[in-house]
């Protein structure tokens, strides 16, 4: 009997969350982004988004240097 009640409760929750997701709208954040990226702070576009940009850039550059070094090592080994 309690299993049936639990299932019924789950059904109610599912119905509520599905119907609310239909009504959920994605907000237009383009004007905010335009403000951030048009700020006159001298930052190049690949770093202008904030600290996440810098982290991703540093990771990519580190892999680039590592890769170039590994490639050179392998070439000279051959």
């Amino acid at each position, binding site marked *: 009997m309690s299993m049936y009640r639990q299932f019924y409760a789950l059904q109610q929750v599912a119905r509520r969350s599905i119907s609310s997701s239909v009504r959920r709208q994605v907000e237009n954040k383009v004007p905010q982004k335009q403000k951030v990226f048009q700020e006159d702070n001298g930052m190049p576009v690949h770093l202008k988004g904030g600290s996440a940009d810098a982290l991703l850039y540093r990771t*990519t550059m580190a892999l680039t240097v590592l890769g170039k070094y590994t490639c050179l090592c392998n070439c000279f080994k051959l």
Partner: protein
Amino acid sequence: MAHQVHAYHMVDPSPWPLTGAVGALLLTSGLAIWMHFHNMTLLTLGLILLLLTMYQWWRDIVREGTFQGHHTPPVQKGLRYGMILFITSEVFFFLGFFWAFYHSSLAPTPELGGCWPPTGITPLDPFEVPLLNTAVLLASGVTVTWAHHSIMEGHRKEAIQSLTLTILLGFYFTFLQAMEYYEAPFTIADGVYGSTFFVATGFHGLHVIIGSTFLAICLLRQVLYHFTSEHHFGFEAAAWYWHFVDVVWLFLYISIYWWGS
């Protein structure tokens, strides 16, 4: 602060051409090392680096166009020329594989039995899954055009729906083609028939996956309000690419699947 007195885009210095070049170097040398020494390190590193480069470079282009307003009409014209030239280069890429197919199939050698399909090869029935695939891609051409008109008319929800449908049709094609590959009675190692079939259709399949990915990015951008009814070149570029992929399939279907059986 100095202001520019022209409509062109002077890009900020960017590290992505360098990281992309090193990534391409690692991919190619990594491929050679993998084939000879069975070591996948360089290859994997190259792939990761290229993916990171593509993500950040294209992210920056979206920022420059949509958030900074650098894609003025002359700049957009340049982007259009660029995409057209790229697709043209891809046409030549496929032309090579069609040349190979016709070279071998128009004058089949005695080693093949002097016939096409060669002796021992059971080709796929062109009126089964390949015909369905043709219908799927043609339908996706219709839905992508529907998406374009929806964007131009400012119908946000319809644009999202039709673009989603286009992507789903692309995935359906890929799924069906993967099943065909698994079930095929011949392999890539089955002489020149296998080589031409799997290399030509294989590269086409890769382009379907690339095209579907491009469309998926466009769907994300449409949801995020990046496209306006007047300015949505990213979507147009994706649609052009998708139509190109569709046309290549039509040539593949008629030449390899139908005439070649």
